[in-house]
């Protein structure tokens, strides 16, 4: 599978999963099950929440990578100044490093909260 198609599928299917997960949360809320005891005891919920976190990372990565490759390029930053255009690749790589690092840190934190 090529990268373009992979990204396209990943974003659409993850968005669909978010919708299903939000409906599931709504159901829990309306049936008065949305509490920490339920979170701690219910394995199905833990698995679904973990999947949500993983898919949110993928969804967010694709979206933020797209924003970076649109707006943090030699061409786009070059509109502001030649100096910025010259270091555009460094700025974009730094931006990518930060959102990957933040995503990684959040994922570890969420896993800890969900499973331990």
């Amino acid at each position: 599978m090529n990268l373009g198609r992979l990204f396209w599928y990943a974003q659409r299917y993850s968005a669909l999963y978010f919708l299903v997960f939000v409906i599931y949360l709504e159901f829990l809320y309306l049936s008065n099950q949305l509490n920490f005891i339920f979170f701690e005891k219910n394995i199905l919920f833990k698995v679904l929440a973990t999947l949500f976190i993983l898919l949110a990372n993928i969804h967010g990565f694709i979206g933020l990578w797209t924003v970076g490759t649109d707006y943090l390029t030699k061409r786009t930053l070059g509109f502001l100044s030649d100096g910025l255009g010259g270091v555009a690749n460094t700025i974009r790589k730094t931006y990518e490093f930060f959102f990957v690092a933040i995503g990684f840190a959040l994922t570890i934190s969420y896993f800890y909260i969900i499973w331990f």
Partner: protein
Amino acid sequence: MSKLEISLYRYNPEKDKFPYMKTYNVDKPSRDIMILDLLHLLKESDESISYRRSCREGVCGSDGMSINGKNGLACITPISSVLKGNKIELRPLPGLPVIRDLVVDMSEFYAQYEKIKPFLQNDTTAPEQERLQSPADRDKLDGLYECILCACCSTSCPSFWWNPDKFVGPAALLQAYRFLADTRDLSTDERLEDLSDPFSVYRCHGIMNCVSVCPKSLNPNKAIGEIKSMLLKNKKNIIASERA
């Protein structure tokens, strides 16, 4: 007689350090004329004004420009349709390098057009006269082949502004689909493969600027949707089965 206030983008790289807007006041014509006629009137008083034009009837696609903020062909845009008060602002097509005044460098646009290989590819033995199609197959090309490559659509697309070297753009994608949809063309696999990266097609987010500005009322967005559909569903197999 009331006056028209025309704000015109001026830039001559041999003389000007930066582009600027110059205001011209002309008598409002007694009848509704086209923007191109208005430019001719301006040029009578200022010969240094530069713009492209050729057929003056919406066929050659030479005089695409931004007219009061919306891309269009000067030769088929009546002033009455764009007037804001008594003001008209004319700028070159956005996103392309300006050569002079309203004349832009179309190299990036044509490079994308070249990339999609805009010609029929069929290596089977050529028939004596011509490769025939059924009327139904021929109908599939309506709304695709009429593009005049004026670049109004591609230069109204932010994705093309940001990545004109990677995103093919609505005009070239419309032509890409024109050949993908052509039952006589046998390079469907290769054409789809060439468009399968994250930029060429998938950078289109469907904001429909291309549709709203097309002077020929074509729908590049729909063609892009069809290409995405072919890429996702591996529609080449469906086409092969249709051909069989």
